[in-house]
């Protein structure tokens, strides 16, 4: 795989993660109108927050790089 293809592949992955983040955020917003307030809404929102943060930490912030030295 050429370098340009690798770059395109990585950029595509970033776009996919972004789309997932947008979907999660919009669903979160909709939950406020659909689910009555209380513990259920709180639990659902927390789950969505963790999913959002997890995607950013893993794919955008490359958390895994902390355990993998380049070239090792």
């Amino acid at each position, binding site marked *: 795989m050429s370098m340009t293809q690798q770059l395109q592949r990585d950029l595509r992955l970033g776009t996919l993660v972004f789309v997932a983040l947008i979907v999660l955020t919009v669903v979160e917003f909709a939950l*406020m109108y659909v689910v009555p307030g209380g513990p259920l809404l709180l639990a659902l929102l927390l789950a969505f*927050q963790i999913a959002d943060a997890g995607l950013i930490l893993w794919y*955008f912030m490359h958390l895994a790089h902390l355990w993998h030295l380049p070239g090792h």
Partner: protein
Amino acid sequence: MMHQATSAPHHAAFQAPVHTPVERLYLNRLGLWLFILSESCLFAAFLWARFYLLGVERPPELNQALGLGISLLLLLSSLTAYRAETSIHYGSVSGLLRNTAATIGLGGLFLIGVGLEWTEALEYFPPSTLFGTVFFSLTGLHALHVLSGLGLLALVYWNGRQGRYGPGNAWAVEGAVKYWHFVDVAWVFIYPTLYLVA
């Protein structure tokens, strides 16, 4: 003379550790992650204060459309920041500059959105009210982080224009972009906590 005689062996005994570039990169990353962890504790304390002081109470005057809009803007800025970092790792300076500029622009728009929200908030729940205290503290703390992130990104853009970054020399880009993503992660928790819980 006496002082020189006693301090010389001390200097001779001290050997600064020599790190390979790979080890240095690892230590830089570790240091940044520890910094992010400590910053997360600060945000967690502020978020906890919201529930401690107010429970899940939320005023109906909150501008929901604006809240969602600025959240989407910040998420989009994370994508452009990711694209900037990815571009320089593959040697594309033009990609770095284009995407860093876009990130700065989106971050600026986010701050304008927060300013608009503050204008409305001052009218409905000023800082003297309990919700106002929580709202302005959380969004203010976050806006300060956005501002410092914009400063870092502006520095990256400036240095990028001077040709100072390349595939093997992109730690500054990586560090600034990671910090920007952290600012986004903080908002991912702040937005539902202020706007959506009920």
